C-alpha cells in the first residue's frame, strides 16, 4: 500500500524545484496578455459586431489555440499535466491562504489552475457564440461586407444558399448573443477575482507573481 505523501510541499532544501517559474516562458506571457487585452477591448471599447471587434475575437481564438497546443508541447510548467484541475486541492490552498502559510507548486497553484480553466471555458463560449452570430465570417469577409455597403452595392452580401431567414433564426441568434454577453461579463468578473488572487498570493507566497508574467529575471 502506498504511503500518503504530500506533493510539492515546500521545504528548505527542495524549494527551488517546487516553486513556480520566476519568469514564465514567452508563449505563456504572450497568450496571457494578448487574450487579456483582446477581452478588455472587446468588452469595454470596440463596437459590437464591428470589424475591430471581430478581428480581436479571432486574435483571441488564435491565442487560445496557441496556449492549448503549448499545454501539450510546451515546457513542463506550462503543460496541463502540471496544473490539472483539482477542486479539493484548490479548496485546501484557499484555506491555507487564510492561515498565511501555503504549499508551493512547480506550476500554477491549484486555485489558480481552476481560475485558468474557468477563463478558458468562458472564453471558448464567447468565441463560439461570436462565431455563430457572425456566421463564421472572417475579419476579411467582414471588411469586404463593410466596403460593399459603404459603396452602396448590397448585392455582394447576398449568399447563394440564403433563403428568407425565419423568425426562429432571429430568435435563436438573439439568445446566442445573450449568452455571448453573459459569458463576456463572466470573463470580466473572473478577471477581477484573478487580480485579487494574484495580489493575495504574491503577499502570502512572498513572490512577485506580476513580475513572473511580465519582465522578471529568469532564475533557476
Amino acid at each position: 500500500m502506498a504511503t500518503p505523501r504530500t506533493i510539492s510541499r515546500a521545504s528548505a532544501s527542495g524549494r527551488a524545484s517546487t516553486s513556480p517559474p520566476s519568469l514564465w516562458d514567452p508563449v505563456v506571457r504572450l497568450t496571457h496578455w494578448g487574450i487579456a487585452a483582446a477581452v478588455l477591448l472587446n468588452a469595454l471599447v470596440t463596437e459590437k459586431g464591428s470589424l475591430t471587434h471581430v478581428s480581436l475575437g479571432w486574435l483571441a481564438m488564435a491565442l487560445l489555440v496557441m496556449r492549448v497546443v503549448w499545454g501539450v508541447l510546451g515546457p513542463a510548467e506550462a503543460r496541463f499535466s502540471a496544473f490539472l484541475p483539482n477542486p479539493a486541492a484548490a479548496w485546501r490552498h484557499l484555506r491555507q491562504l487564510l492561515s498565511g502559510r501555503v504549499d508551493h507548486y512547480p506550476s500554477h497553484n491549484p486555485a489558480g489552475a481552476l481560475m485558468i480553466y474557468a477563463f478558458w471555458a468562458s472564453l471558448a463560449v464567447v468565441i463560439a457564440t461570436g462565431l455563430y452570430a457572425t456566421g463564421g465570417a472572417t475579419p476579411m469577409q467582414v471588411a469586404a461586407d463593410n466596403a460593399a455597403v459603404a459603396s452602396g452595392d448590397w448585392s455582394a452580401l447576398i449568399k447563394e444558399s440564403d433563403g428568407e431567414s425565419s423568425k426562429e433564426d432571429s430568435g435563436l441568434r438573439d439568445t446566442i448573443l445573450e449568452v455571448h454577453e453573459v459569458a463576456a461579463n463572466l470573463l470580466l468578473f473572473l478577471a477581477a477575482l484573478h487580480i485579487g488572487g494574484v495580489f493575495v498570493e504574491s503577499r502570502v507566497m512572498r513572490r512577485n507573481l506580476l513580475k513572473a508574467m511580465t519582465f522578471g529575471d529568469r532564475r533557476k
Partner: protein
Amino acid sequence: MKLKFLTILALTSLPMAAAAMPAVGDMVGTDPDTAKAALEKAGCTVNDFEAEDGKIEAKCTDTATNKAMEIYIDPATGKVADIKATED
C-alpha cells in the same frame, strides 16, 4: 369607467402607433437610396447603413419617439427581416 375608456382608447390607438414604423416583412428596397426613402416615409430617419451577419443594418431614428432603431434588411429580397431598439 374613465379608466375603461382610457384603456379602450389606448388599445385602439396602438395599431396606429405601430403603423408609424416599418414592420417585419415590409419591402423597403435592395439599394441604399430606395431603402432610405422607404424607411423615412415609414417614420425612421436613416443615419447609416452597415453590414451585419449578411444583412443590411439600417441605423435610423424613429421620428415619433426620437429613439435609435436598428432595422435589418435582407439584401436579397429588400424586405425588413428584423427591427430592434438600439441598446445602451
